[in-house]
């Protein structure tokens, strides 16, 4: 449990930092140039880390399913939808909705155990917990906001 929470918090901090870096790139160039660069860097870093930890074992044959080859496209879907959403709603509102949707889907996912994930039984307490977090997101994002902050300027997750 502690390990899981530690990694979740680490991921969140890294995403926050990456969003700032990515928006610095995006200030100078277009969305797709930025996305291609970000994913290219992600690939290079993953490859290097994989080689460091596993050496040639990184390329050992593994039981591949067809869809593994296409799941990288989800990231392209994220960028497309987010850019379109921000264009129509502005960054603050779009990112708020995105975060709320992210969390709601997570709860549904755990409840149904889709894609072979371990089922986490639904409880009302969980739903209330999620709703309290959602209200926190809304207060944080929309409470007296005058200017969009860095995080909302360009939100891009290449994970």
């Amino acid at each position: 449990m502690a390990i899981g929470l530690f990694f979740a918090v680490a991921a969140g901090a890294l995403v926050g930092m990456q969003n700032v870096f990515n928006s610095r790139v995006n200030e100078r160039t277009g969305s797709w140039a930025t996305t291609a660069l970000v994913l290219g860097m992600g690939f290079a870093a993953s490859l290097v880390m994989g080689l460091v930890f596993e050496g040639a074992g990184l390329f050992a044959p593994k039981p591949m399913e067809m869809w593994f080859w296409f799941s990288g496209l989800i990231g392209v879907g994220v960028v497309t939808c987010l850019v379109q959403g921000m264009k129509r709603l502005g960054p603050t509102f779009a990112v708020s909705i995105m975060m709320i949707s992210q969390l709601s889907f997570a709860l549904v996912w755990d409840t149904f155990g889709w894609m072979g994930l371990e089922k986490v039984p639904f409880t009302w307490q969980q739903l209330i917990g999620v709703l309290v977090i959602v209200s926190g997101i809304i207060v944080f994002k929309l409470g007296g906001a005058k200017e969009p902050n860095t995080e909302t300027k360009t939100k891009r997750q290449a994970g």
Partner: protein
Amino acid sequence: MKGIVFAFLAGAFITLQGVANARISDAIGTWQAATLTQLTGFVAAMLIFLFVRDGTAVQLKQVHPLYLMGGGLAAFVIFSNVTAIQHVGVTLTIASLLIAQLLFTFVIDGMGWFGVKKQKIRLPQIIGILLMAAGVVMLKM
């Protein structure tokens, strides 16, 4: 309305991405999963870029090299995200991730790090983070 649908889908895709990464990691290993999905995503984004051509190398030269390498953080994001999902499930992972993300961004804004314009800390942001933390405690009680 259309904007809301797009933003909603973006969030759904991010969660889907985390779960897909966790599933692929179970089958072939976490670094393999990160390498594969970043590569296929890169190829797709590159193809779209070649079609829309919305940037030039000259523009990228104006950006500080540190920021150009930000994408590399994804390797660690994916590893951490997958490890967390395997240990505590999707809901608690995403909830903690979002809090850490907002909190860290809040600190960056407050301190003016990474060339960000320094912003005043506002009360609603503190209340928002406290509410989110309370929600996570409820999830786990």
